[in-house]
């Protein structure tokens, strides 16, 4: 026992006073799960964390202010003009704007950046490809006009607001052509190098990315807005929320990004810590796959909408991490519908099912086996049972669930959808448009995945896409949302909310509605 006591005392002495220094004053330390990053090349980055990093490393021609997403703002383009036919937009580049390398931002860089997205054909390419751009025509569609102007042409007469909104997304990032071309390997347009390095004009430059460990970005003092207030941001990979909480409480982290409801409840009243909630663009839903005959009856879809305890899940189970939202376009965005006509009403659901003569229905529902899906699924299973629908839960990993969803092999699916760019078309296409329901034409849309092909709504979605009057266009999307709410084989249930815990001395952090809009340029530590 003497030996044991000696060992314990020696261990304690060895580590006494070894506590770490708190995060330095000019460095922001963020505890976050970052193991989703695949690449930091804006032509390839399509995961949550890589989107956030890329948005801090690169500027776009047009951009959103995370604090006010109603308006699209000038970015590297200080102004733009739209041709009479609406098919060509000419951007005037901001004079004096420079990349972090010191190279000036030129029209050639814009042409190069858009071209490499199309030619490389990585995951985000479809956002620019929807303009009718491809490897063959891209040289004609994006052109230098003068030393300070670049013009883009789209193949069809889409609404200019749609085009501008899409250019404000990640693949619209402008890359320093000279730097990228210095690092080309096997004709990859710098893809391999840009996956781990940056060549942008954004507020920060990439110092290092160590997969599964950390991403470190440093202030770009060349930025046209001036240098950011903080010198360095460290995104530390901390997968476990409880560990994030401990780091925040001990001051080793300034921001904890992935705390669950329990951790948020535990830290929100602690001295020196504040919790802020930001509405997110992702909407959650429960869908039925019409490949199965037993699920084709619209009465089932309607009854299901009354067999979900929306308020109970949002307020009791998820405690602020979701809010009730039942339209496909998230609230806070222009054109969103915030009506919530459905609430838990078992009697009404039973009545609907009885009138349609639906009895003894059993449905397998796939779901990702992690929070918040588990909590939501269990609640829905319980309320569905009250209405006479037996829901069998089939949990799986995210990749497993999506593999099945993509192959349309599910019966019911509990999932979420986040817009790819800040235009209602992004979600209208997902929830109201499907003109080719063939198995041989796979689409990522919720409509195709659930084998629902609404001809009339598809036509209306198309009409809204080409409507040039912005106010009328938004009205068209409102009408679409209300139609989908009533007619679709799914129930849209919640809109995600990011609950972020910060040290009280952190000021100026804004978590925009998408990861593209998590910007660190205004963050300071007092």
């Amino acid at each position: 026992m003497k030996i044991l006591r000696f060992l314990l005392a020696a261990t304690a002495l060895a580590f006494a006073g070894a506590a770490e220094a708190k995060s330095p004053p000019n460095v922001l330390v963020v505890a976050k799960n970052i193991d989703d990053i695949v690449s930091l090349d804006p032509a390839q980055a399509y995961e949550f964390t890589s989107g956030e990093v890329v948005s801090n490393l690169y500027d776009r021609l047009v951009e959103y202010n995370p604090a006010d997403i109603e308006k699209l703002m000038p970015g590297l383009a200080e102004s733009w003009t739209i041709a009479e036919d609406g098919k060509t937009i000419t951007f005037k580049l901001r004079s004096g704007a420079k990349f972090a390398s010191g190279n000036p931002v030129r029209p050639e860089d814009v042409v190069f950046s858009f071209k490499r997205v199309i030619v490389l054909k990585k995951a985000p390419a479809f956002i620019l490809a929807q303009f009718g751009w491809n490897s063959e025509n891209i040289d004609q569609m994006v052109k230098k006009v003068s030393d300070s102007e670049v013009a883009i042409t789209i193949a069809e007469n889409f609404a200019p607001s749609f085009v501008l909104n899409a250019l404000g997304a990640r693949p619209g990032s402008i890359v320093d052509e000279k730097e990228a071309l210095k690092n080309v390997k096997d004709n990859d347009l710098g893809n391999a190098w840009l996956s781990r390095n940056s060549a942008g004009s954004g507020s920060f430059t990439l110092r290092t990315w160590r997969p599964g460990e950390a991403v470190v970005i440093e202030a770009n003092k060349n930025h046209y807005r001036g240098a950011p207030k903080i010198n360095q941001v460290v995104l530390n990979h901390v997968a476990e929320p409880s560990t994030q909480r401990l780091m925040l409480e001990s001051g080793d982290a300034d921001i904890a990004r992935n705390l669950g409801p329990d951790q948020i409840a535990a830290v929100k009243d602690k001295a020196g810590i504040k919790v802020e909630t930001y509405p997110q663009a992702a909407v959650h839903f429960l869908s039925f796959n019409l490949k199965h005959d037993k699920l084709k009856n619209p009465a089932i879809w309607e009854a299901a909408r009354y067999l979900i305890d929306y308020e109970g899940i949002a307020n009791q189970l998820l405690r602020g991490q979701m809010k009730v939202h039942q339209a496909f376009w998230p609230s806070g965005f222009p054109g969103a519908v915030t009506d919530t006509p459905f609430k838990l009403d078992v009697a009404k659901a039973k009545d609907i099912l009885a009138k349609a003569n639906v009895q003894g229905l059993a449905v397998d529902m796939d779901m990702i086996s992690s929070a918040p899906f588990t909590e939501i699924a269990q609640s829905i299973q319980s309320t569905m049972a009250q209405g006479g629908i037996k829901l069998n839960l089939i949990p799986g990993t995210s990749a497993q669930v999506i593999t099945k969803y993509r192959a349309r092999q599910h019966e019911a699916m509990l999932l979420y959808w986040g817009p790819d760019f800040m235009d209602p078309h992004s979600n209208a296409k997902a929830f109201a448009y499907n003109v080719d329901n063939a198995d041989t034409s796979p689409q990522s849309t919720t409509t195709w995945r659930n084998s629902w092909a609404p001809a009339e709504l598809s036509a209306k979605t198309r009409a809204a896409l080409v409507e040039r009057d912005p106010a009328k266009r938004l009205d068209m999307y409102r009408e679409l949302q209300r139609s989908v709410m009533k007619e679709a084989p799914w129930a849209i249930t919640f809109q995600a909310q990011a609950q972020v815990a910060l040290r009280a001395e952190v000021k100026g952090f804004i978590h925009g509605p998408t990861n593209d809009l998590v910007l660190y340029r205004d963050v300071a530590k007092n």
Partner: protein
Amino acid sequence: MRGFATGAMRAASGLATLLVTLAGLLLVTFVIGRVMPIDPVVAAIGDKASQETYLKAREELGLDRPIWVQFGRYIEGVAKGDLGYSSASGRPVAEDIARVFPATLELSTLAILIGVLAGVPLGVYAAHRRNRWPDHVIRSISLVGYSTPIFWLGLIGLLVFYAKLGWVGGPGRISNAYRYSVDEWSGLMLVDTLRSGDWDAFESAVSHIALPALLLGYFSLAYIGRMTRSFMIEELGKEYVTTARMKGASEAQVLWRHALPNVLVPVVTVVALAFGYLLEGTVLTETVFSWPGLGLYITNSLFSADMPAVLGGTLVVGLCFVALNKLAEIAYPLLDPRTRTP
């Protein structure tokens, strides 16, 4: 000459066994990976990529070829020292493993040292005091180590020693302040910080590895201590021990000079197994302590059906087990003359 020929035969036989073992391991892992209900292309490019991008990625990953061709090409690559590219990240698997394995090796080595240095003496002492209170205490310590979820114990350890007392560093391998000032020479943080001569960085590395190493060491201790106790109890019941006692040998001599050397062969086997399991990676510990090790790498790769990464990790784990077995085999004759072959 005859001895040389016998040695060469043994070496060739050992090498053949190693190659067959590894090939079998890879084949089983490959088949498991292919029957998993996860599409590696979707895992690599996400859910929303166009069909054109999907088909391009599928072709780039070689998944459009028959399975046996895929496996054949993989084995051919491995034979040339190429572990391929991770389908999820696009990075060379060898590079990924070179990054994560040293983290696991460093942690596991410290943990097994703690497990052996504390577990063996505790096991011997417990056997000596069988069914008395020291034995009960040591068995209870082992039982707690065996039955407590390591995830929970890790969090409690962090809460007490990091968040409350501030005795140890937090998650990760080193403080952010030193992370980029230390040259990555070996990948072993303790070695690299020592080599750099930066004592503050070394202290930070020690304070970060202390808690996970003690925790894993405790779990190894529980296993090694329990097994050592069991071996020793059996040994202490043998006649030669009674004879030694009758001849007036002290209890310490009986334990450490007579009985312990006779149980070292099974103890070494147990230690090799425990070390192997540690090197395989301890996913939950790595998760709680944000320790970028091999276990977490293989698990994450498996969830995204990233077979080149899973196969590369499996190969390394397989090699570790084979190497540890071989080391144990080499140790046996040194520890017990009866196991020497003529």
